């Protein structure tokens, strides 16, 4: 039927609406490419079959995609008079239930994601029905919160293959309006008023472009839609065409009318077969209805659209290349001017806009430019569709008003990292875009703000990256992409990118030096400024932004030959080893243990980690989060195995032999003398390596015993003092001298040490408490965690009374709480101002504390400590908080409310953080940062004083045992290199030979559970809680290793490499 007037249009609309809304159930299955890929076709077929079987009179139709890719397939169910309900993750097994429910007149709710009561299609409204309030409204669920659907107004709700569905929701009415009321000038005026900017990436004002086009006089004028979407990770345009092809055609028709153009072309990727098919059908239907072709809607306006499938060259997204491609030539750009509006396809005036730009046009005509300009920011109006992919829980297509903060998209809609890892950056704009670091996630997403950060809006790809992504590798990946897509016409892009890719590959392979980074920094701006077209001009962006925000990662790759993200394979052997701050050769000691070579295993463990028994108890074990066995069942418990090795050595006759071996491994005396200040883990680790390298080492310690925080703050039940003592005895037997009662600035002066020694290593730690800043904090029964724990460690525990409240969420808070339980407190409560998942404490420790009766309460921040007239604590007033904006760490900032909670108690322990004491440093002339940590060159740990290095918590701020020991190890390496003129540390790390065989099937069975005391057996004493592995368990656990360190092996069963 040919549509010539408004009545016909209205008739079609009403007929279809009646059928859709009033008469019978309707089931829509989300069948975009994404849905089909997740099994929507089988769901659809199963539904079709079940409906026939049941004899149910219901409409079953494919619809487009509603955007929430992570939970596809999506099925929406509408029962007359009820809300439209969207079901998520539907499988064919769910189908009988769904059909049964519908047959019984009920809306199936088992897999319900959300409900829609009414929907504003912007060209018309649809009211479904009310009720079912137990299912959240669509915009109440986190993924859709803050989204505003303008472009995606119909996606996932209408059948993209039916013209009358589009008309039913008000489609083609804006075209009628445009053709019959305002002239072309007025339409352009509206577009200008809307301030619509090109959605392809550059953000050029559409109205300005159209105006040029309107003014160009020629008998043929081309309107082109750029649907050559090619950014890796971006699929907005595909989904827009697959879900709602008519909105694109309508936009082009209106644009053609406004600019007096008569020929339209959609340049669509051939790799999008479903989009091609649906658009072809839409063009066909529109032609048959007289919406394309001659005398459209009864006017004198004629316009037709041709579909051209692109052959897949990325550069054809550039308009002059696209024109060349359309003319049958190779897709290579040419310089502009002349611009396509002056001389484009076949020399005729040509206007090219992106799919999404066109899709906005009908809405602007329908609602007016002013309405559109009211969405977003003044300079970036309207919405933008983003494909949110990468390391977020909720992936999918997200349409946000421009100007929304990036963090709301990443943390709010995306739901943050799925693996509870730290999100590092977002890559926007694909290969032409840049990486925005997490510290800039406050940035509003609009053209100017993203540009200011060196990124671009681009077509809307948004790839979230976490700590497992290597930023050098990201730059290399994108550059390899643009390099292989470069057309080769201009030299900067052709040869410049080739050279840049070579440099990046060299860095990833650990073969580059810092001069290569300089070369990269020279090349990138030249490629950007001198290349002929947009491809080359934007190709360096990933390099420029990663160099700007993640330069330290480049330096790590080059200077330390490390890729901490564990991506650049040539720089590490296994992921566990790479993630270990001490770089322990984990698969090797597991293998040695497996081969029953305990002595070798022990020697290796000691060489890699001089405190293996202590770290085996208290390390935060980052290795486990990287362990590939974790993808199979559970990660290998590597920490417990090296604890077992160390404990066994201590318990038996092996100790003397291991000690003898270490003495044998020690280098000949160099005659150099190094002073270490502070006998904490960092100082001990530095002392060990310096001693092994043949230097004379004297450790100066303020307290009476060595061990630092391990000795004075870690409770006995976690780390028994005699274990630590035994480990330090080993160090002493290597010739390290300890002097106690030596305080820096009081008796011990850097000046005289510099005289006596060749180098000084400062590791005095973080012994000053951060104050919580609440009233009454100075009352006598208010303890700070470190002082409290230290007092207990000294054997003079304070009386805790009956009820204890601990403020904080870190390990010090949990340690204090569990210690208070052991000191006899009847009730112990930890209060934390954020939520459980935000707690920095080790999760197992929190679990154990709760098992011992500790109560953990969240969203409470200390307000005032209540004391009686004698100054004794009576209780604490806590202010309730609510989660607010996301902060730089991706956690929600606690926002105080007026609500106050009073907890009666006898003792308050504040565990809100520690910092170094800056005064002795300042007096010694060491530069100190704002957070009181010592300022060092992070590769050499050198301070501003030439022969003074510093490490440990003193430079990093409060961290954990393995990280702080790693700084000691790294500083020892640097000190030795400076003293001896070469890097010798790796030579200390003796190499063992052992079998290198990858198990073809996972071995060793389930993860071994370490022995431990039951809560009732442990909460009244300070006996060690975790008892570790026995011999059998340790060997079984070591057999679980998948041997990621073995790089090559023939694939014969039982074969060796």
């Amino acid at each position, binding site marked *: 039927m040919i549509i010539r007037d408004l009545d016909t249009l209205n008739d079609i609309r009403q007929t279809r609406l009646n059928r859709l809304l009033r008469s019978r159930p309707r089931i829509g299955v989300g069948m975009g490419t994404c849905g089909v890929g997740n099994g929507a076709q089988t769901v659809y077929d199963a539904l079709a079959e079940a409906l026939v079987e049941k004899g149910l009179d219901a409409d079953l139709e494919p619809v487009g995609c509603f955007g929430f890719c992570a939970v596809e397939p999506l099925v929406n169910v509408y029962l007359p008079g009820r809300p439209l309900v969207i079901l998520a993750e539907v499988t064919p097994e769910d189908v009988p239930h769904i059909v049964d429910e519908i047959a019984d007149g009920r809306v199936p709710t088992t897999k319900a994601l959300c409900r829609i009561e009414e929907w504003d299609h912007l060209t018309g409204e649809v009211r479904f029905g009310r009720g079912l309030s137990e299912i959240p409204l669509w915009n109440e669920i986190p993924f859709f919160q803050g989204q505003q659907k303008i472009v995606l107004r119909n996606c996932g709700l209408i059948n993209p293959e039916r013209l009358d569905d589009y008309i039913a929701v008000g489609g083609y009415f804006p075209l009628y309006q445009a053709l019959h009321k305002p002239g072309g000038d007025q339409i352009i005026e509206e577009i200008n008023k809307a301030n619509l900017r090109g959605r392809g990436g550059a953000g050029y004002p559409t109205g300005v472009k159209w105006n040029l086009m309107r003014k160009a006089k020629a008998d043929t004028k081309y309107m082109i839609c750029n649907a050559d979407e090619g950014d890796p990770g971006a699929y907005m345009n595909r989904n827009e065409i697959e879900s709602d092809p008519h909105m694109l055609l309508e936009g082009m028709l209106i644009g053609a009318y406004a600019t007096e153009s008569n020929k339209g072309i959609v340049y669509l990727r051939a790799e999008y077969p479903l989009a091609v098919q649906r658009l072809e059908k839409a063009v066909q239907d529109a032609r048959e209805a007289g919406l394309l072709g001659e005398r459209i809607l009864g006017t004198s306006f004629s316009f037709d659209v041709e579909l051209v499938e692109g052959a897949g*060259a990325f*550069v054809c997204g550039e308009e002059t290349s696209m024109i060349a491609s359309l003319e049958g030539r*190779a897709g290579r750009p*040419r*310089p502009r*001017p002349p611009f396509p509006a002056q001389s484009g396809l076949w020399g005729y005036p040509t206007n090219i806009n992106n799919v999404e730009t066109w899709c906005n046009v009908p809405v602007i005509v329908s609602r007016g430019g002013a309405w559109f300009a009211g969405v977003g920011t003044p300079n970036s109006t309207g919405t933008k569709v983003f494909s949110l992919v990468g390391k977020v829980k909720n992936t999918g297509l997200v349409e946000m008003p421009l100007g929304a903060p990036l963090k709301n998209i990443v943390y709010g809609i995306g739901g943050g990292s799925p693996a509870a890892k730290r999100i590092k950056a977002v890559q926007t704009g694909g290969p032409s875009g840049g990486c925005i670091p997490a510290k800039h996630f406050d940035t509003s997403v609009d053209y100017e703000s993203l540009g200011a950060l060196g990124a671009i809006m681009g077509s809307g790809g948004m790839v979230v990256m976490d700590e497992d992504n290597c930023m050098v590798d990201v730059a290399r990946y994108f550059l390899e992409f643009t*390099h*292989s*897509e*470069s*057309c*080769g*016409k*201009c*030299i*900067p892009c*052709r*040869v*410049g*990118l*080739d*050279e840049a890719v*070579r440099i990046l590959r060299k860095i990833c392979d650990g073969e580059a030096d810092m001069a290569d980074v300089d*070369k990269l920094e*020279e*090349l990138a701006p*030249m490629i950007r*400024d*001198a*290349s*002929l077209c947009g491809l080359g*001009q934007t190709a360096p962006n990933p390099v420029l932004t990663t160099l700007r925000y993640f330069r330290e990662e480049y330096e790590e790759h080059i200077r330390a030959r490390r890729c901490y993200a564990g991506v650049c394979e040539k720089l590490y052997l296994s992921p566990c080893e790479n993630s270990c701050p001490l770089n322990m050769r984990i698969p090797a000691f597991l293998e040695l243990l497996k081969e029953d070579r305990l002595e070798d295993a022990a020697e290796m463990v000691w060489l890699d980690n001089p405190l293996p028994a202590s770290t085996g108890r208290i390390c935060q074990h980052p290795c486990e989060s990287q362990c590939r066995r974790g993808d199979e069942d559970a990660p290998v418990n590597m920490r417990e195995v090296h604890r077992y090795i160390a404990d066994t050595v201590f318990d038996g006759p092996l100790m003397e032999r291991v000690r003898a071996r270490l003495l044998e491994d020690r280098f000949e005396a160099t005659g150099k003398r190094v002073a270490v200040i502070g006998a904490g883990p960092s100082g001990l680790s530095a002392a060990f390596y310096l001693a092994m390298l043949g230097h004379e080492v004297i450790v100066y310690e303020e307290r009476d015993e060595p061990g630092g925080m391990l000795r004075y703050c870690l409770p006995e039940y976690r780390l028994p003092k005699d274990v630590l003592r035994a480990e330090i005895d080993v160090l002493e037997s290597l010739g390290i001298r300890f002097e106690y009662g030596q305080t820096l600035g009081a008796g011990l002066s850097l000046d005289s040490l510099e005289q006596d020694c060749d180098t000084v290593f400062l590791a005095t730690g973080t012994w000053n408490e951060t104050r919580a800043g609440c009233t009454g904090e100075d009352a006598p029964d208010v303890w700070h965690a470190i002082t409290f724990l230290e007092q207990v460690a000294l054997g003079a525990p304070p009386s805790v009374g009956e009820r204890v409240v601990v403020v904080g969420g870190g390990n010090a808070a949990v340690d204090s709480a569990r210690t208070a339980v052991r000191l006899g407190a009847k009730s112990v409560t930890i209060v934390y101002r954020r939520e459980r998942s935000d707690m920095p404490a080790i999760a197992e420790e929190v679990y154990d504390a709760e098992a011992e009766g500790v109560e953990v309460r969240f969203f409470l921040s200390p307000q005032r400590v209540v004391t009686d007239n004698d100054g004794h604590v009576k209780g604490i007033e806590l202010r309730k908080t609510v989660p607010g904006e996301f902060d730089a760490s991706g956690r929600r900032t606690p926002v105080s409310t007026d609500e106050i909670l009073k907890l009666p108690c006898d003792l308050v322990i504040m565990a809100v953080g520690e910092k170094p004491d800056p005064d002795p440093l300042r007096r010694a002339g060491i530069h100190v940062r704002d957070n009181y940590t010592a300022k060092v060159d992070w590769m050499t740990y050198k301070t501003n004083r030439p022969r003074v290095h510093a490490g440990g918590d003193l430079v990093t701020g409060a961290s954990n045992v393995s990280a702080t020991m790693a700084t000691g190890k790294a500083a020892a390496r640097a000190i030795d290199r400076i003293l001896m003129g070469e890097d010798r540390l790796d030579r200390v790390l003796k190499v063992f030979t052992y079998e290198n065989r990858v198990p073809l099937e996972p071995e060793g069975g389930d993860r071994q559970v370490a022995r431990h005391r039951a809560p009732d057996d442990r909460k009244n004493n300070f006996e060690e809680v975790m008892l570790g592995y026995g011999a059998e368990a340790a060997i079984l656990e070591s057999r679980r290793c998948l041997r990621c360190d073995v790089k090559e092996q023939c694939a014969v069963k039982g074969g060796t490499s």
Partner: protein
Amino acid sequence: MSNEINITINGRELKAREQQTILGVARSNDIYIPTLCFLKGLSGVGACRLCLVEIEGVPRLLPACVTKVTEGMVVTTESPKLKEYRRMILELLLAERNHVCAFCVVSGNCELQDLAQQLGVTYVRYPYRFPKYKVDATHDRFLYDPNRCVLCTRCMRACEEVEGARTWNVRGRGIRSFMITDLNQDWGDSPTCTTCGKCVEACPTGALAVKGRATGEMKRKKNVLSQLSSMRDRGR
């Protein structure tokens, strides 16, 4: 006669005609702008980027060979940035293929060599790629050595625009771009080549040469192509 336009190049106020390119105006006023893919008499492609100039009020650098002058245009052809970019471009080009002058027929008569001297390229900071391309010596009179090709496409344009034979074309893309004859056939088997030698005259380097010449012996007739095309324009 077209209208007269006033433009400024490097502070000199100059008269120009409409439709003239910046390069054209500069050359007729003895202002040097380096070029490589440009050849008088052929269409401009703006590909080598050596002739990039700064124009006041334009945020991007534009190629002088194809950018038309406009009234009041203020052009700078020399700046530290332009100098550095041109140097880098030339160094990249020299590293891309095997430009060994010591064994080259056009040594002493080579535009690439001249540019390197003019721009002060005394060393190349990028590692040489040393490709190993087969030399095509199948043609009776001419030799094609892809190892010396700079992909300026002057041969292709001369063949297409002046001779009309369309023997030459570019195969592949990016760093794998490569000049080919016909459908990647041997030049000697080309059904389209007329053996006119215009491509050889157009080539700025030793990639296309007349057979039988020893090192440094190959000389080209200057301006033969521009004379041909201007005579043709007059004949129209």
